[in-house]
């Protein structure tokens, strides 16, 4: 049952990644693309955690943690760049 649930959830997360990708390709503004990248890394974290459950391995938490930190820093850096023209003033 758990195996089935994990597979279905991975499919649903893939659908959500594809919807995000659609918005990123279509997004009329730069901000939409930043928002979509933010949403994409959050979904990627969830898929990595699901893969960890699927394979029964705890090795994936560090990868998820790194993606969380780097994704946040990336979002804030891009926002800051668009707002101010440079990142570290």
């Amino acid at each position: 049952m758990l195996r089935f649930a994990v597979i279905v959830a991975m499919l649903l997360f893939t659908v959500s990644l594809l919807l995000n990708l659609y918005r990123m390709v279509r997004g009329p503004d730069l901000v939409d693309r930043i928002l979509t990248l933010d949403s994409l890394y959050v979904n990627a974290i969830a898929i990595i955690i699901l893969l960890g459950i699927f394979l029964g391995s705890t090795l994936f938490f560090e990868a998820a943690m790194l993606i969380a930190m780097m994704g946040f820093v990336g979002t804030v850096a891009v926002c800051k760049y668009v707002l101010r023209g440079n990142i570290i003033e």
Partner: protein
Amino acid sequence: MSTELPFLVELLVSALILAGAGFAVIGALGLARMPDFYMRVHLPTAGTTLGVGCTLSASVIYFSFSLQTLSVHEFLISMFLFITAPVSSHMMAKVALHTGVKFVDHTQGRPWPSRTQRPSRDNSQILSDWQTRDRKETE
């Protein structure tokens, strides 16, 4: 997935995983379907808070039972996500306000006109909107 879990634990973990995936799909669907940015910026909050939150709690329960030790790595990730999600969406809303992103008519509230910063291109509709509003306010 080699170890056998008790049935109730497996049921709980499966339900949490499926709920998380459902919330993530709802968030992504809203992100793809909402008409303008100011509505769209709300949706990833659902995906972050409930989608990833449910998945991470499922992971905590699963690994705590299958490894027979309390596994709290995931709480670090979820705490970090819950702290950083409002900050990043605040930054993005600020970028949208300052670059003058277009909005549809039934978005509630209007971005405050910035008088110090020249709006970017593609913005004449927002500008005329602001001007009519300012005229209404002075009358």
